[in-house]
């Protein structure tokens, strides 16, 4: 009987060494960390010197693992995309495992990607885990001659304990002299006038964003459906990607003639 029992028990115990979870919110991260930094290096290297770039945006992949995997498969079939921007909400409950499950799916992309922080990613100690797995919640990178400024705009999650959006960060990015910086794109999870955004500063935010060299457009996610709106009726477009269950993503092409095109792709 004892032998039999050990026979059943031992494989279980040794096969699943990383199955001994302390707690769903333990913050114990295994596998790749600081994903954004590594991928930004890849993007900047691959796009260096380019004046025409093509990238995909998607987001809100929380608890849609099957659909996110389908997106990865669909995107890997094409070879014209330079990189992917995940607009945030990788997790649904802020569980530590959720960030790693999503990272492992997105890591199957053949092109590099960056992930923004969504409001669900801030739940419980999610933002600590996000920071560990992906990196800082405000960051920027260059793709060819375009500077992408990616922001945490989930103000409702922070109770004024953090500046959200962080105008000091935006100011630093404005003053930073990056060689080859000609055009700018802003990316955020929550767009102005959402109940998650700090709407007291919505107009101020827009004024600051518009100071950047050749602002092309702004990108967002969060609302789970496709959006293309001139939010402030000032000519600056906000494009929102749908959630993963809608099985679509956006593709943007920024061309040297100061034009850009975008398309919605269903998979």
């Amino acid at each position: 009987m004892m032998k039999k029992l050990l026979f059943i028990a031992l494989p279980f115990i040794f096969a699943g060494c990383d199955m001994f979870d302390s707690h769903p919110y333990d913050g114990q991260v295994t596998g790749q960390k600081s994903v954004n930094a590594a991928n930004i290096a890849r993007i900047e290297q691959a796009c260096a010197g380019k004046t025409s770039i093509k990238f995909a945006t998607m987001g809100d992949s929380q608890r849609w693992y099957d659909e996110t995997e389908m997106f990865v498969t669909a995107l890997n079939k094409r070879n014209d995309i330079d990189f992917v921007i995940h607009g945030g909400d990788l997790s649904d409950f802020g569980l530590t495992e959720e960030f790693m499950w999503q990272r492992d799916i997105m890591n199957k992309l053949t092109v590099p990607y960056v992930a923004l922080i969504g409001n669900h990613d801030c739940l419980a100690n999610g933002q600590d885990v996000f920071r560990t797995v992906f990196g800082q919640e405000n960051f920027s990178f260059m793709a060819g001659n375009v500077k992408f400024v990616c922001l945490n705009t989930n103000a409702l999650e922070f109770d004024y304990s953090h500046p959200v959006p962080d105008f000091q960060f935006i100011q630093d990015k404005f003053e930073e002299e990056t060689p080859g910086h000609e055009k700018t794109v802003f990316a955020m999870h929550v767009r102005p006038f959402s109940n998650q955004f700090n709407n007291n500063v919505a107009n101020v935010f827009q004024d600051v964003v518009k100071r950047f060299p050749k602002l092309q457009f702004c990108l967002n996610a969060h609302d789970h459906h496709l959006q293309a709106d001139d939010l402030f009726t000032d000519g600056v477009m906000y494009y929102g990607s749908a959630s993963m269950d809608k099985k679509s993503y956006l593709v943007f092409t920024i061309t040297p003639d100061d034009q850009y095109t975008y398309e919605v792709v269903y998979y």
Partner: protein
Amino acid sequence: MKLFTTKTKMIWCSVFMLLSCATVSAQTRQKIVKDTVLIITDSIKPNGEKNYRAGWGILIPEYAKVQYAGGMAFMSIGGGWDYGKKKQWETDVFLGFVPHYSTDKNKITFTLKQNYIPWKLDVNSRFMVEPLTCGMYLNTIWGRDFWVSEPDKYPNGYYAFSSKIRVNAFVGQRVTYNFNKGRDYFKSVTFFYEASTNDLYLISAFTNSYLKPEDYIVLSLGLKLQIF
């Protein structure tokens, strides 16, 4: 001397109060004496040994448990009570510690666990095997970042779940070694392992074929020391 002047009234009054107080305290004292006698007779077993579990002593846990992982904490320490005809029920309480790992704070958890152990198989006089243990546990985690229901700042139903309370279900197996009767401090020691999952992992697994059992099943190991 007048018997009922104001002054004498007051004296009589205080004498009466003193007397009644004395009677009351005498009665209480009697009661205490009675109770003490009762406890003493109750806490001595027929063989003359001291019975720690008499009266309120029934609340003293019958065993101590240590459990590693299992989604309740890195390490949980607790105790509990067994009951039922064949002692097939066990209720445990645990205090757990979760190191901060990549987050900025260490955490404390509390777990209330109900076990059901339907079969006990004696291998020999020393070893006993319980081929199935199963049950549920409620786990709460301390910290400002965790809430039972969403704080007021959110619109109603913005996040329809609790980050503070997890409901877990488990199955497992146990092996028990019995010490010499009366000679050792502990009656027996039990090794157990369990496989468990929680409500949020289950919701995620139900709606996705991508997630495999090794993703949403959590393992744990534990020891139980039987004291009474």
